[in-house]
């Protein structure tokens, strides 16, 4: 948290002096059953409503509810809120809320020096300490002395607060996350009203639970207000950020991608048929779309990913927009069918929400390791466009783009997002929808001289025929087709021509996408970071910092991975060093090297976690030969 100024703020009826901070990172951590995801997202939503810029990062185990008290069962949620531009959930938390010893064990190493530590003492039992791997109770052995400790028996306080509402003590204790939220709301000057409302809606059918939670929220708030805070902890406030004018909402990547698909379909004038099979972290795409039956969206929960993609291909054959979404292992199963869509020249949108691999890997962790698979992962010469969203909100726009390219170029398109984008939320300025140029699909209806696989000589694109159209009955499939009539053809020259046509068509997508640009920094210089996907935030903040320090660093961010945008080579050649930060073991660097024969290097992090800003800053220091000790301005003082 970065202190700026002190000001006066008024708590409930009482005047409080609040220290003004321009940025705070809080991590909520507890058992899977402790409701940390809810707590964190409520804190985020409230902060967004209060005008902060923010970024959030949920980090939870693959088990639904791992056994209580274990380190692998710890569920975390980090919120970074600020009065300035925020692009990442923050490197190290300023505040750690640890609901039990395991949460402390796992998360303390990341807490900033002298950071604020909120602890539920009730959970620090012998058994829990042992489960977490503590030999001694850290609350007693002074090992936490370096932090600003706020140790409260949260369970007890919560039970006191909810007692009037007649909950069992088991149910009552469940409200302790909300009590804690109340405490932090007071501490950081958040308005509890939106959460109160949210509780009322959520527990509409269980009014006693709603009331108990509301009481807990109030009680936590009041507790903070009335308690002498330990040394070094003051009430804080984080003023509004200066954001572009507009109406905002909070959005995560899966919601944005789902809505983007619907938006794209509207622009194309098509109904959506979304065929999918649940898989973490992509399932929410299905959940969101399943709710939109009144928006010409049909969802089909298929028996597996193969059936999912096949149903989408069938839908495209039938004249709807076929869409499917999945994550790595599911993409693996779809590869054969994607080849069919390429051969049949049918539109298809595939959203791949990447997660840690190989194989089942780290299902709930983020990674960018499907890039080469997306580009090259099909038998035969089977090119297709690959796009990548950079931020949660960008998923909306890139999904629209995926629909545009799929329908305009009669091709499957893979849109890459990842677990971090999918689950991370940010305040999102609702875009001006009228600014989107429609790209209506005009189906073939002309029966005269009809040839289902006649290709526009300029573009190599065939016209879409909706099965069911009178007079245009045609047959298609996965065998090579005669250019024009589309009948099966084993003719050698035809196969060569069709292969070239398919490759050229995808290459020409580059004509319809924005040229490459420098997002930050000068057009030429010492070092350029070329990012793609969710590394956007970390690179932006790191390059921002480096530029502020006067270094020659620039930032290019790719949203179109295949074909690459025009002008990229020229831009890259403007720099002595081309460096590609990726959450994989080196992929985009390979593509750039092969394409441009430029000695692109990778900065690779394969930990299931997004880059931290300091990691990139330090990488840059090293590449720029900057003395590290000297320049280390990144550890933002807590006081």
């Amino acid at each position, binding site marked *: 948290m970065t202190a700026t100024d002190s000001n006066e703020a008024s708590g409930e009826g009482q005047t409080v002096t609040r220290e003004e901070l321009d940025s705070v990172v809080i991590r909520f951590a507890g058992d899977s059953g402790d409701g940390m995801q809810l707590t964190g997202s409520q804190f985020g*939503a409230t902060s967004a409503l209060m005008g902060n810029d923010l970024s959030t990062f949920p980090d939870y185990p693959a088990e639904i509810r791992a056994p209580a008290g274990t380190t692998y069962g710890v569920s975390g949620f980090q919120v970074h809120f600020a009065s300035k531009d925020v692009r990442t959930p923050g490197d190290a938390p300023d505040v750690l809320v640890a609901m039990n010893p395991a949460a402390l064990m796992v998360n303390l190493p990341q807490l900033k020096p002298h950071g604020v530590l909120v602890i539920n003492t009730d959970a620090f039992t012998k058994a829990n300490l042992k489960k977490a791997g503590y030999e001694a109770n850290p609350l007693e052995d002074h090992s936490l002395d370096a932090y600003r400790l706020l140790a409260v028996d949260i369970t007890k306080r919560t039970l006191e607060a909810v007692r009037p509402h007649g909950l069992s003590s088991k149910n009552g204790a469940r409200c302790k996350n909300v009590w804690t939220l109340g405490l932090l709301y007071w501490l950081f000057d958040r308005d509890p009203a939106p959460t109160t409302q949210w509780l009322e809606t959520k527990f509409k059918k269980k009014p006693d639970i709603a009331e108990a939670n509301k009481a807990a929220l109030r009680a936590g708030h009041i507790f903070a207000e009335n308690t002498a805070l330990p040394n070094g902890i003051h009430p804080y406030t984080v003023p509004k950020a200066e954001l572009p*004018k507009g109406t*905002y909402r909070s959005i995560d990547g899966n919601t944005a991608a789902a809505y983007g698909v*619907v938006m794209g379909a509207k622009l194309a004038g098509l109904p959506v048929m979304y065929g999918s099979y649940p898989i973490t972290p992509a399932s929410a795409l299905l959940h969101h779309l399943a709710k939109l039956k*009144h*928006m010409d969206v049909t969802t089909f929960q298929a*028996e597996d990913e193969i059936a999912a993609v096949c149903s989408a291909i069938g839908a495209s054959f039938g004249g709807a927009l076929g869409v499917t979404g999945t994550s790595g292992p599911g993409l693996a199963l779809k590869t054969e069918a994607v080849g069919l869509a390429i051969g049949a020249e049918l539109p298809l949108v595939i959203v791949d929400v990447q997660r840690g691999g190989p194989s089942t890997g780290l299902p709930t962790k983020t990674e960018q390791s499907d890039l080469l698979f997306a580009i090259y992962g099909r038998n035969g010469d089977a090119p297709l466009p690959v796009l990548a969203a950079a931020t949660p909100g960008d998923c909306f726009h890139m999904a629209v783009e995926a629909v545009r390219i799929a329908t305009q170029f009669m091709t499957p398109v893979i849109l890459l997002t990842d677990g971090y984008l999918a689950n991370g939320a940010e305040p999102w300025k609702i875009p001006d929808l009228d600014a989107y140029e429609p790209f209506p699909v005009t189906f073939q209806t002309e029966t005269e001289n009809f040839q289902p696989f006649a290709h526009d000589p300029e573009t190599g694109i065939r016209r879409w025929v909706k099965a069911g159209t009178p007079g245009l009955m045609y047959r298609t499939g996965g065998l090579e087709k005669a250019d024009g009539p589309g*009948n*099966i053809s084993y003719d050698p020259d035809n196969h060569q021509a069709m292969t070239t046509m398919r490759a050229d068509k995808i290459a020409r997508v580059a004509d319809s996408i924005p040229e490459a640009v420098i997002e930050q920094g000068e057009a030429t210089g010492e070092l350029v970071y070329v990012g793609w996907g969710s590394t956007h935030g970390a690179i932006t903040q790191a390059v921002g910092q480096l530029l502020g320090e006067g270094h020659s660093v620039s930032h290019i961010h790719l949203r179109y991975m295949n074909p690459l945008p025009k002008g990229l080579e020229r831009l890259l050649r403007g720099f002595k060093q081309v460096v590609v930060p990726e959450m994989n073991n080196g992929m985009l660097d390979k593509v750039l090297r092969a394409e441009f024969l430029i000695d692109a290097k990778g900065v690779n992090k394969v930990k299931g976690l997004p880059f931290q800003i300091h990691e990139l800053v330090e990488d840059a220091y090293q590449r720029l030969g900057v003395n590290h000790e000297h320049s280390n301005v990144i550890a933002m003082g807590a006081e």
Partner: protein
Amino acid sequence: MNATIPANALKKKDFASDQDVRWCPGCGDYAILSGVQKAMAEVGAPPHQVAIVSGIGCSSRFPYYMGTYGFHSIHGRAPAIATGVKLANPELHVWVITGDGDGFSIGGNHMLHVLRRNVDLNIILFNNEIYGLTKGQYSPTTEIGHVTPSSPYGSIDQPVIPARFALGAGAGFVARGYDVAKELSALFVEAHAHQGASFVEVLQNCVVFNDGIFEEVANKKTGSDHHIWVKNGEPMIFGKAQDKGIRVSPKTGHLEVVALGDGITEDDLCRHDETNVERAWDLAHMEGGLTAFGVLYRVPGVAYDAAVRQQLADVKAQKGNLTMEELLRQGHTWDV
């Protein structure tokens, strides 16, 4: 929806494409093709309202020969693709053409799921008990002991019985025919009429890799002694001389073949009840070399695609249309 046009307006040839048929001379597929074309002409679905989806195999080349919409897709996936076609365009009559390999080996899972979901598809399984297109390996319906290139010492896999599988999967329409049967196109007409998934197994002769395996059952001379065509409500009589029948065994409660005469009369025979799933189970695999043809099982039900459309309509009726603008502004928003 069954958009039809006046009877007799359509002829069989209206359902033929301009492509040469590329099956081996003598292949049973020709007769099935003819049966489907005849059935389509009879039900009067205009060719542009018909879509035929197939997988891969000799049988799966079928769509190329039909003057309708056709999708010769990938191996085993036709039911899934067909589901998408039907969901996108409910006006279409969607047929699935598949083989014993395509539909029951690689494609068994999709078969299970379209049947249990009851998607309104007409599924024809060309069962030649062999992989034709890949040159004669044994398939999931091949009898034990069969010597093929992949089972040089005889296959040891217990075969699946397609009609029983279909019943186990919860199918609402299960029928069986054979390639050269004159009754075949009538069976397809029934399949077409059924709302929901209709499963029709057709025993099909592969002249090249499995010639004659259905000879006894399908042969003009001997066939009638080795097969029975069941008709709803009618007693189960068969035989060239109509001298044999099927009754419920008083001992076991199951169907058994009996000779008429010697105290056993037509009244003792079982009358076919299409809605009786246990009888269908028995009929699906009779002992003693008897094969049952016809509609073995049929119960009405709600087609999956109809339920999908209903739900779309209900939500729309209840909530009205939602615009994109409204969607994005749902929930908490704030102005800056």
